[in-house]
C-alpha cells in the first residue's frame, strides 16, 4: 500500500508528484492549474463574504460522509447562513506521515465531487506533511468566498416577536452518526450523517429572502446552541414546541441510551431560519419540496423576552434550553 511520506512535504519533486498525480486530477480549475502562489479572481459586483473553518473529524470516514465532503459542506453552509452565494474555496491539507494514499485520494475525490455538486470552484490549496503521531490522518482547512445576496439582510436586530423559527430537517443526525463509529463507543445504528451543502436548498426559498431575518447552521452545539445565540443577541425569547421538533426515532433512541440531548447534537446539513410569520408556511413548503428539506418544520416562535430559550413539552410543561457547556463529543467536525 502506498502511503504519504514525509518527503511528500519536501516542496520539491515528491510534493509536485503528489500534486499532479492526485490533487490536480480532481480539481478542475484553471487557477489551480497555473500553479502560481495565489489565485487571481475576476472582480465581482457586490459585497464579498469570507469564512474559514478547519476540519479534524474523527473518524475520517463516517456513515454518510467523510472529512472531504464535510470540509466543503461546513464552509459552504457558513457562507449560505451569512446570506451569501458560495463561489470559491481554498483547501489546505495537513497530512500525517503514513496515511494511505488510497484514503487520501478518497477524501480528495469526495471534496472535489461535493464542491462540483454545489457549484463552487476550488481555486487554491496547500499540503503539509507532519510526522506520524503528530496529526490524526488528515486535517483540512477550507476558506470560502461568496457573494452576498442583497435581498438577504440578516441580523439578530432584525428578528421581531412573532417571527417563526424553521428547522430545515431532523436534528442530531451527524452527532449520532459520528459517535456510532467512534473507537471505544461504537454501536450499530442506521443513522447517517446529514452532511450536505445547503446553498441549493436556500436558493429554493429565494422568493422569500426579504422575509428572512436570521439564519445559522446548527453544527457544534446543535440547535440548542444557535437558538441561544439568537435569543441572547436579539434579546428575545424563543419558544420551541417539542411536538414539532423533527428528530429521527433512531437518533432519539441513541441519545437516550447515551444520555445526550438531540437539541445539542451536531448537524452538518441543517439550517435554522427565522422568517416572518406570514410566509412561514410557504417557506416550509418550499423547503420540503427540496430533497434536503423534506423534514423541514416550523419548530417555534420568537417571543418578547430577555434572551431565554424555552421548550414546551408535549404534556404542556416548559423547561429552559440552556447553552451547552463542555464537549459531549470532541472532534465531530
Amino acid at each position, binding site marked *: 500500500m502506498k502511503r504519504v511520506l514525509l518527503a511528500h512535504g519536501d516542496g520539491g519533486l515528491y510534493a509536485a508528484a503528489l500534486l499532479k498525480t492526485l490533487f490536480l486530477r480532481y480539481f478542475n480549475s484553471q487557477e489551480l492549474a497555473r500553479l502560481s502562489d495565489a489565485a487571481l479572481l475576476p472582480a465581482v459586483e457586490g459585497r464579498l463574504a469570507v469564512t474559514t473553518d478547519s476540519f479534524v473529524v474523527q473518524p475520517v470516514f463516517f456513515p454518510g460522509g467523510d472529512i472531504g465532503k464535510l470540509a466543503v459542506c461546513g464552509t459552504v453552509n457558513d457562507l449560505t447562513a451569512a446570506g451569501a452565494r458560495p463561489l470559491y474555496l481554498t483547501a489546505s491539507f495537513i497530512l500525517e506521515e503514513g496515511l494511505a494514499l488510497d484514503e487520501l485520494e478518497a477524501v480528495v475525490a469526495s471534496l472535489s465531487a461535493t464542491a462540483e455538486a454545489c457549484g463552487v470552484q476550488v481555486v487554491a490549496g496547500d499540503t503539509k506533511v507532519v510526522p506520524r503521531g503528530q496529526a490524526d490522518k488528515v486535517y483540512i482547512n477550507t476558506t470560502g468566498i461568496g457573494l452576498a445576496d442583497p435581498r438577504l439582510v440578516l441580523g439578530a436586530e432584525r428578528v421581531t416577536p412573532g417571527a417563526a423559527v424553521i428547522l430545515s430537517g431532523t436534528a442530531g443526525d451527524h452527532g449520532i452518526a459520528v459517535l456510532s463509529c467512534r473507537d471505544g463507543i461504537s454501536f450499530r445504528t442506521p443513522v447517517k450523517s446529514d452532511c450536505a451543502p445547503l446553498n441549493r436548498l436556500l436558493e429554493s426559498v429565494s422568493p422569500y429572502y426579504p422575509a428572512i431575518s436570521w439564519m445559522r447552521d446548527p453544527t457544534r452545539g446543535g440547535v440548542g446552541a444557535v437558538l441561544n445565540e439568537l435569543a441572547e443577541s436579539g434579546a428575545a425569547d424563543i419558544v420551541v414546541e417539542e411536538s414539532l421538533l423533527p428528530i429521527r426515532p433512531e437518533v432519539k433512541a441513541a441519545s437516550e441510551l447515551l*444520555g445526550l440531548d438531540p437539541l445539542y447534537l451536531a448537524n452538518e446539513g441543517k439550517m435554522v431560519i427565522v422568517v416572518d410569520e406570514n410566509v412561514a408556511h410557504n417557506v416550509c413548503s418550499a423547503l420540503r419540496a427540496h430533497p434536503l428539506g423534506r423534514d423541514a418544520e416550523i419548530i417555534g416562535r420568537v417571543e418578547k423576552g430577555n434572551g431565554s430559550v424555552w421548550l414546551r413539552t408535549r*404534556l404542556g410543561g416548559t423547561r429552559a434550553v440552556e447553552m451547552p*457547556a463542555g464537549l459531549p463529543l470532541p472532534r465531530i467536525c
Partner: protein
Amino acid sequence: MQTAAELSFAQRLLTLIMKRVSGPLVIMEVCGTHTTAVSRYGLRPLLEPLRLLSGPGCPVCVTASGDLDRMIALAGSGAIVATFGDLLRVPGNGTSLEQAQAAGADVRVVYSPLDAVRIAAENRDRPVVFLGVGFETTAPGLALAVKQAERESLGNFYLYSCLKTVVPALQALLTGDAPGLDGLLLPGHVSSVIGRQAQDFVASVHGVPAAVTGFTESDILLGLAAVILMIEKGEPGVVNAYPRVVREAGNVTAQKLLSEVFAAADAEWRGLGSIPGSGLTLRPQFARHDAALHFDLPQPQPAQQAKEEPCRCGDVLRGAIIPPECALFAGRCTPLYPLGPCMVSSEGACAAYYRYERKKGAVPA
C-alpha cells in the same frame, strides 16, 4: 413520548394526580435519572403543590471526594485510566480527571467496561485501571469485565471499585434525619437487577409508600399516581409501576454474577457518610485486579474535606435542600466551573436544575 396514545395516557394521569393533591406532599425521586427526566419534561411546575425532591441516586454524585482524589492520583500514576465520560469533569481536590488528562495523563472515555479490557489486551505492558462508579445497574457489566480479564490472563487490568448498592442507602436515608418524606419513587434501572420485592421494607418497616418506576413522562406520572393513591388510602406499599422491565425477584443471573465477583463492604457516600455493607469490593479470587490493593493511593486529608464544605451536594443528595437553596448554585458553581459533582454529572440534580429550571416563570403562554 412517542405516540398520541401515550400522550393522552400521560395527560389523564396528570389530571388524576392533580385532582388528589391539595397540600404540599413531598415525594423523593431517589434516582438521578428520574431527577433529570422530571426537569427535562418540565414536570415540576405542572405538579405543584406536590414537591419532588431528588435523592442519593446519582452514582457520580455520591462518590466521596476522597475516592475522586484517589482516581485522579491513579490517572497521574502513569496507568491508563478508563472511565465513563461522566466522571471526567467532576472536581476533586482542586483538580479533575479532565485537567489531569490535559496535563498528559492517559485517560480514556469508554462506554463499556469491556472496552477497557480490550485496551488492557492491547497494552499488556501498562496497567489499565477502570474507574468503577455505579449502582447495581453498572456493576454486572464490571463483573463481566473482571471475569473477561481473568479469562484472558490480563494481570494488567484493574478495577478501582466505588460501586455502591441502593438498599443500604435507602435504609440509611429512611432511618436518618431525612426530611419528612410522604413517598418515594424507586429507581427503575436498579430495580430491574435487584427486583421489586427487595425494596418492600420501605413500606413494611418505614411506612413510606413507594413505586418502582421508569423514565418516560407516563412512567413517572404512573409512579406518582400510585404513590398518591396509597397516601390517600393510608395503605403504604411498594408497587411496581415499571412491570415491562422490573420483575418481583429482579434479574437473578445478574445477581448471581454480582455475588460471584463482589462482596459487600462499607462505603463512603457523599452526603450520607459511611454506610455499612453499601459498597461492592472484589472477592479475594479476583484480588489481583483490585486497584485499591495494587496502587499506592493517597489517604483522604481532613483539610481537603474542610475545603469542600461550602458545596452542598451532600445536602442535595439527602433531600435536605433543593439545588437553588445552595448559595453557590448558578453563581460560583455552574456547569462551566462546577464546584461539586451534582453540577457535572448528567444525572446530577444541580445540573438538571441549572439546565432546565434555573430560569423561572416568564414563559409566554
